[in-house]
C-alpha cells in the first residue's frame, strides 16, 4: 500500500492534512452507478474517500460496456453495483467499499432510514418525483445530498442541504489586510520611527511601502480635518508626491494607494452574516454561529468596526530587518485580536450552557484569520423550488439570451420526467415514435411552464427537438464531466474548504455556455 502522504501530495497542497482527514472519515452513498455516478465516485476514491456504498439494482448489459469504464466484458449479466464496487476497490485499496443490489427508488420508498448512516448521498439519474422524496428524507436525517444527472449533451448538479458554512473559503484573490486606511497605534508609532527624507539612499529605497503610505496618509489627514483622500483630484494629489521618487518601494506605494482610499470596516457580505438571525445563539447552535456571535461582539466593540486583523503581510521591497519588524507588528495585533475573540467565544459558550473549551483554540485562530472571508450557503428544499420557483428570476432567464439554452435545459429536464411519468418512456427513447414524441414533449413543456407561472414563455423549438434526439442517452464524455463537477462539490462540502455551488448548475454541452440558476 502506498504511503498515504506521498500519494496524495498533489492534493494535500490544496486542502491540507485536515481536509484529507475529513475525506478519509466520510461515508458516501451512491445511487445508480451508470457512468455519471461511477465517474463521480472514481474521482472521490482516487482522492482517498473513507467508505462508499454503491446502490443500483440493474445488471450489466452490452450498452453499459459502451459508456462505463468501471464495468467490463466479464461483468456482463452481473450486478452493476457489484462490478463498479470491485473496480473502485482496485483504484484505492484503502477505501471501504460496499454495494447494495437494489433500485434506489425502492429504497427511497420502502427504507428511508437506510440513508441516515451516511455523511453524504450522491444521487444520480433520479427523476423529479424521486428527487423530491429523497430530499425530504435527507433533510430530516441531516445528511448532505447532491444530485447529478447526464442527459444527452446536457446535465445538472444541485446540492441540497439546509445550510453549509465555510470558514476556510480560500478565495483566489482577496485583498490583504494592511489597515492602511485605519492604522492602529503600534503601526503608527512604528511608521513614526522612519524618516521619509533620510539621506542615505540605501535606507531610502528600503523603506517598506506600508510605512510610506501610513505616514503620507497621516500627513494628509492632519491637513484635511482627519479625512483621507476621497475625490478623484484628492487621490491624484495624494499619489503625485510619490511619482517623483523613482524607486521600487515608491512604485509599490503608488500601486497600493487604493488601499488608503478604501472604506474602513467590514464588507457588506460579512455584515449580512453578522445580521443573520442565527447569530442569536443557544445550546443547539453550531460552532460556526457561536464564533460569529463572538465576532459580532468584537466588531461592534473592541474591533471598532473592523474584523480581527488577519496578520500576514505580502512581500514588499524592504531590508530584511525592517520587513521582519513590520511582520511582527502585524502578527502581534492579530494575536491580540484573536485573544479577545477567544475570550468572547468562551463566554458565549458558557452563556448557552456549553463547555467553554468545546471549541478548540486552533479553530478559533483559523476563524479569526478567515473572518473577512466567511461564507454561508443555504439551499431551498427541492420540493419548494419545483413547486414555486423564484418567478422573477425564472422570467429573467427566459428572456436573457445568455441564459436561454441553459434555462431551456432546466425546464426540459423536468419536462422529460413528466413525459416519462405519463408515457412510460423518455421522449425519443425509440426511433419509431420520434415525431409523436416531439409533439408530446412540446405540449408537456408548455404545461409545465404554465404550472410554474410562465404562461407566455416558449422554449426554442430546436432545443425541444434536440432533447428528443438525445432519447435519455447517458454519454460517457458528458457523464465524466458532470461526474467531475459533482465529485469536486463533494470534496468542498466534506473538507469544508472553498465554496460549493449555490443554486443549480446546468451543463450545456451544445455550446458550453453553461450557467448557474438560482430558483
Amino acid at each position, binding site marked *: 500500500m502506498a504511503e498515504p502522504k506521498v500519494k496524495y501530495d498533489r492534493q494535500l497542497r490544496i486542502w491540507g492534512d485536515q481536509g484529507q482527514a475529513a475525506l478519509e472519515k466520510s461515508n458516501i452513498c451512491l445511487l445508480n452507478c451508470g457512468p455519471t455516478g461511477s465517474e463521480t465516485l472514481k474521482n472521490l476514491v482516487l482522492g482517498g474517500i473513507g467508505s462508499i456504498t454503491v446502490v443500483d439494482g440493474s445488471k450489466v448489459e452490452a450498452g453499459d460496456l459502451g459508456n462505463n469504464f468501471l464495468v467490463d466484458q466479464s461483468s456482463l449479466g452481473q450486478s452493476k453495483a457489484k462490478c463498479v464496487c470491485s473496480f473502485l476497490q482496485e483504484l484505492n485499496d484503502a477505501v471501504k467499499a460496499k454495494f447494495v443490489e437494489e433500485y434506489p427508488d425502492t429504497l427511497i420508498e420502502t427504507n428511508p432510514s437506510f440513508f441516515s448512516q451516511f455523511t453524504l448521498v450522491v444521487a444520480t439519474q433520479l427523476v423529479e418525483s424521486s428527487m423530491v422524496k429523497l430530499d425530504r428524507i435527507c433533510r430530516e436525517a441531516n445528511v448532505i445530498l447532491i444530485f447529478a444527472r447526464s442527459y444527452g449533451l446536457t446535465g445538472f448538479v444541485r446540492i441540497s442541504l439546509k445550510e453549509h458554512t465555510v470558514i476556510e473559503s480560500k478565495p483566489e484573490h482577496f485583498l490583504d489586510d494592511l489597515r492602511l486606511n485605519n492604522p492602529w497605534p503600534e503601526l503608527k508609532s512604528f511608521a513614526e520611527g522612519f524618516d521619509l527624507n533620510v539621506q542615505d539612499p540605501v535606507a531610502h529605497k528600503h523603506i517598506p511601502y506600508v510605512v510610506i503610505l501610513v505616514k503620507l496618509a497621516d500627513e494628509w489627514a492632519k491637513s484635511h480635518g482627519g479625512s483621507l483622500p476621497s475625490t478623484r483630484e484628492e487621490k491624484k494629489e495624494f499619489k503625485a508626491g510619490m511619482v517623483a521618487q523613482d524607486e521600487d518601494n515608491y512604485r509599490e506605494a503608488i500601486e497600493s494607494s487604493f488601499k488608503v482610499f478604501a472604506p474602513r470596516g467590514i464588507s457588506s457580505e460579512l455584515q449580512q452574516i453578522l445580521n443573520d438571525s442565527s447569530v442569536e445563539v443557544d445550546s443547539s447552535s453550531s460552532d460556526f454561529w457561536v464564533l460569529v456571535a463572538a465576532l459580532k461582539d468584537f466588531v461592534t466593540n473592541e474591533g471598532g468596526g473592523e474584523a480581527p486583523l488577519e496578520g500576514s503581510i505580502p512581500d514588499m521591497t524592504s531590508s530584511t530587518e525592517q520587513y521582519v519588524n513590520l511582520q511582527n507588528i502585524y502578527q502581534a495585533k492579530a494575536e491580540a485580536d484573536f485573544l479577545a475573540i477567544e475570550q468572547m467565544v468562551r463566554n458565549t459558550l458558557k452563556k448557552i450552557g456549553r463547555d467553554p473549551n468545546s471549541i478548540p483554540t486552533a479553530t478559533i485562530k483559523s476563524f479569526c484569520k478567515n473572518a473577512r472571508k466567511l461564507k454561508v450557503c443555504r439551499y431551498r428544499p427541492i420540493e419548494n423550488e419545483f413547486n414555486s420557483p423564484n418567478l422573477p428570476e425564472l422570467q429573467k432567464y427566459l428572456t436573457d439570451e445568455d441564459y436561454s439554452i441553459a434555462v431551456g435545459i432546466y425546464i426540459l429536464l423536468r419536462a422529460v420526467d413528466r413525459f416519462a411519468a405519463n408515457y412510460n418512456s423518455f421522449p425519443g427513447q*425509440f426511433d*419509431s415514435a420520434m415525431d409523436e414524441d416531439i409533439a408530446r414533449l412540446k405540449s408537456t413543456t408548455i404545461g409545465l411552464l404554465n404550472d410554474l407561472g410562465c404562461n407566455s414563455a416558449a422554449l426554442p423549438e*430546436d432545443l425541444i427537438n434536440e432533447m428528443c434526439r438525445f432519447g435519455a442517452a447517458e*454519454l460517457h*464524455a458528458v457523464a465524466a464531466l458532470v461526474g467531475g463537477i459533482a465529485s469536486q462539490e463533494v470534496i468542498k462540502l466534506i473538507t469544508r474548504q472553498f465554496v460549493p455551488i449555490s443554486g443549480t448548475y446546468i451543463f450545456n454541452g451544445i455550446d458550453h455556455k*453553461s450557467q448557474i440558476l438560482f430558483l
Partner: protein
Amino acid sequence: MADTSVPLQQPSRSRDLDKLLLRPGNLVGPTFEPGEQLSKDLDEYVRILVVGAGGLGCELLKDLALSGFRNLEVIDMDRIEVTNLNRQFLFRLEDVGKPKAEVAAKRVMERISGVDIVPHFCRIEDKNIEFYNEFAIIALGLDSIEARSYINTVACSFLEYDSDDNPREETIKPMVDGGTEGFKGHARVIMPGITPCFECTIWLFPPQVKFPLCTLAETPRTAAHCIEYAHLIKWDEVHRGVPFDPDNPKNMKWVYDEAVKRAELFGIPGVTYSFTQGVVKNIIPAIASTNAIISAACALETLKIATGCSKTLSNYLTYNGSEGLHTKVTEFERDKDCLVCGPGIRIELDPSITLQKFMDLLEEHPKLQLSKASVTHRGKNLYMQAPPVLEEMTRPNLSLSLFNLMGKLPKDIVHVNGMTSKNDQKTSCLRKLRVVFKGVDGVADMDTAGGA
C-alpha cells in the same frame, strides 16, 4: 430518415452514442450526416493522437475510447511516479517506474474491447513531422507552454492557403487543448487558419514570476526567497559544474537544509520540506476532478469535430471551480499576421535572384520595408546580421542563388527578421514570407512547412 421499424432494445454497445450519431438534428455541425456510415467511419478510419498520458491523458484516452473512437495513439516520455496515483487512474502502485504511455494504452485496451491504442514512449520532438499528419485530430493533455507551442507549430505547418488567402480545408489539422491547475482549467479548440492558434494567443499565458537576484542575494524576506537562494545561487557556489537534479532526493535535501540555514539567519519562518519541493520543482497542485472535467470537455469537442454531431466550442473555455463554479466561453480571433498559422506575405521571385538581391527587395517592398534582415529557411540560417561569428559564417551565402539555398523548392516559407519603421520609430520585427519562384515547374505540391 430514421428507420421506423427498428426493434425496441438492441443489445448494442453503442446504445447511447447511437442516439447522437444515427439521428438527424437541428443544433448540429454544418457537415453532419447521421447514420450507420458515420458510426462506421468513426470506428474504422478516424485516428486520434493523444499527446500526454498523465492527468489529462489518462482521462482523454478513456473518454475517447468510450466515445466511438477505436484507433488511438498516445505519446508520453515520462515514467509513472507515486505522486501521479491520486488522479492518473490507469496506473497502480506496482506500475511506478514504467512508461506512462505503455501502461495507459494497455489498461484501456484491457477494459474496453475493440479499441486499439498504440503507445509511444518518447519525446514529441523525436517523431518526424509526417507522423503527426496521420491523425484526424490531435488532443493535447500537456503541462508546458513549450510542448504546446511545438505541437502547434507542427500542426500549423501542414496548413496551406489558396490563391485567395483562404485556408485549404483538407490541410487543416484540428487540435483540442486542455490544461489544469488545482481547481482551474481551460479547454480550447484550434482550427489552424480559422480560429487562433496557440501562437496567436500566446499572451494568454502570464509570464512566470522570477525573484530579483538582489532580493535572493541580499534582502530575502520570505521562505521562497531562502529556498531559491539555496537552489539558484548557493548550489552553484558549492557544486561547481554539477547541475542540480530536482528528481534527486539528496539534491533536494541539500537545498532544503541550506534554505533552513538561511531562513534562520534572517529570522524568516515557513521553510518546510514540502514547500521547498513545491518552489524548486514548480509543483502544480492537481486533483482528479478538474482533470476529469477538462478532459471530458476536450473529448466531447473531439467527437463533435470528427462527426459534426453538434455545434462546437467556439473557441476557448475557461473554468474555475474553487468558488462556486465559473465557466466562460470566449471567441478569440486569429492574428492575421501570425507567424505560425498565417499565410505570410506572398513574394514572387525570379529563380536567378541572389540572397543579397532578395534582402534588398525586402527594403523596397511596400508591405515590409525591412532593413538589416536576417533570413532563415526551415530552421537553417541563410544569413545572420549578428553575432559577428554567425555573420561571417553566413556572409558567403549572400552571393548565392536563393533558389539553390532553399533546396530548389518551387515555393516555400521563409522567415525574415529585421528593422522596420513605424510612426517614425524603428522597431524590430519578424515576418513570415511565402516565397514563390516564377516559372519553376511546381509539380510536387510541397508542404508549406513553417520553418520556425
